[in-house]
């Protein structure tokens, strides 16, 4: 776990779409090692999703100012040429979205969408090879019948299946960094557990670093190696998962942990 995949330094975002500038993220510093799962937890509006979108390069360029650095394998994503950034997106950095219902193109067959990253970044890969890899990944995400799913349209699949398709599509290019932004929020608990297990498995097998963003502390605890707690655009506390959950230093973290619903059976 020596290699640093991602390093965010003094990162901030300021919106300029109203009369007064609005700071939504400020002084965010963290790093992510190879094969590590870093959980970012925080309430709505704490800036966790904005940070994720910025790392993915999906923030609009207009109407907001970004500061600091986002170093991916030592190169700054924020000052990088557009073309270079595009060659990283989908190939080295990929993302799973919150809503599996809308994150897939309704008019495209699932197989096509899983292959998309390969088609764009590796045109040298033949069609058969592409299909083979797509099917392999559909199998990896525990589809019972990859061939059928490959030919299916998204509306023929359940929410959990679609989210697994998203994971397959995100992983098909063997990225170094996988960003999961609230990727289990729209799913029910049993499916959540399956997705979490899947992500852990993929993380183990492929040594992909995962940035796992959620407001659900118990999920964060299950999946993460290290945790960042964010509030109002600032990092409140960061540390190993055990340290954060067993010996929280900050008041806010203590409150959050105390607020985890306990189910007594």
């Amino acid at each position: 776990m020596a290699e640093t995949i991602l390093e965010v330094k003094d990162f901030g975002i300021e919106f300029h779409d109203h009369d007064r500038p609005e700071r939504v993220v400020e002084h965010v510093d963290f790093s992510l090692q190879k094969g590590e799962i870093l959980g970012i937890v925080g309430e709505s509006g704490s800036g966790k999703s904005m940070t994720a979108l910025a790392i993915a390069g999906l923030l609009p360029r207009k109407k907001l100012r970004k500061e600091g650095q986002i170093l991916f394998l030592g190169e700054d994503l924020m000052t990088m040429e557009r073309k270079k950034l595009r060659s990283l997106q989908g190939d080295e950095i990929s993302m799973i979205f919150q809503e599996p219902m809308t994150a897939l193109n309704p008019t495209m067959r699932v197989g096509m969408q899983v292959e998309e990253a390969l088609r764009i970044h590796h045109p040298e890969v033949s069609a058969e090879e592409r299909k083979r890899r797509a099917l392999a990944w559909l199998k990896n995400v525990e589809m019972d019948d990859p061939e059928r799913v490959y030919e299916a349209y998204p509306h023929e699949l359940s929410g959990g299946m679609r989210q697994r398709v998203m994971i397959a599509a995100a992983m098909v290019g063997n990225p170094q960094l996988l960003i999961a932004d609230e990727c289990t929020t729209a799913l029910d608990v049993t499916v959540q557990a399956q997705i979490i297990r899947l992500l852990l498995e993929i993380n183990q097998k492929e040594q992909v670093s995962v940035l796992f963003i959620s407001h659900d502390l118990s999920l964060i605890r299950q999946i993460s190696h290290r945790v960042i707690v964010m509030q109002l655009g600032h990092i409140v506390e960061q540390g190993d998962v055990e340290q954060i959950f067993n010996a929280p230093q900050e008041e806010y973290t203590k409150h959050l942990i105390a607020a985890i619903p306990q189910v007594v059976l």
Partner: protein
Amino acid sequence: MKTIREWIKKHRNFNFFAGAGITSLILLVALVGIFYTPYASTEMNAAAKNAAPSLQHIMGCDNYGRDIFSRVMEGIRNTFFISLATVAIGTFAGILVGSVCGYFGGLPDDILMRVNDALFAFPSILLALVIISLLGTGTINVVLALGIAFIPSFARIVRSEYKKQVTLDYVQSARLMGAGHLRLIFVHILPNIVPVLLSSVMIGFNNAVLAEAGLSYLGIGVQPPEASLGRMLSEAQSYLFTAPWYALFPGLVIVLMVLGFALLAEGMTEE
């Protein structure tokens, strides 16, 4: 045969079938007209001047004694071709302009949409009139003029659809996979606006039929002696009382054509 019957039973889409029926009947008549007409469409016959419908001339004859049915057959073809080409130009350019505006937003959107508004400000017939007076008459020019006049409404529809689609997660997700702008616009988003586009193409086709008829009626559309449905109507108006069938049949065919396509569009949106 059985599967077709089952399909019909399952869908039971009256609008669609009625529309498809009427439209294909009219197209069939036009198609036959290419190879066979009862009389040559320009063949004059002094003896049959303004003749009433009879077994020889089922729709009667016009003021030159030309067989109206033969001319209607040719007229449908001209009207159909002009309308189709018009809608094709309007749709194609509309998709280009609308997708750029809706997808990129910002300055290109502002500029193109203001130009669009300026074009929109004129009724399409008036705009076509201006363009024809610049280009001169002739079938191709009519198509061009109407096509240009049809761009703004298509561009607007396409633009608003793109604006809606571009914020959806699947577009973001495809963008994150590294898909370029062109790929996003045409491969990812375009198929998603086809349903909306389809019904507006159908409605646009109807408007084109009427616009062509209007232009020909004004005498700047298809030039004599060629027949188009609108041209026939305009020639018929002087004989409205002596030979009412001259106006009746071309008018009826226009009504049927528009009705057929309207029903077809309605049926397709239901599907």
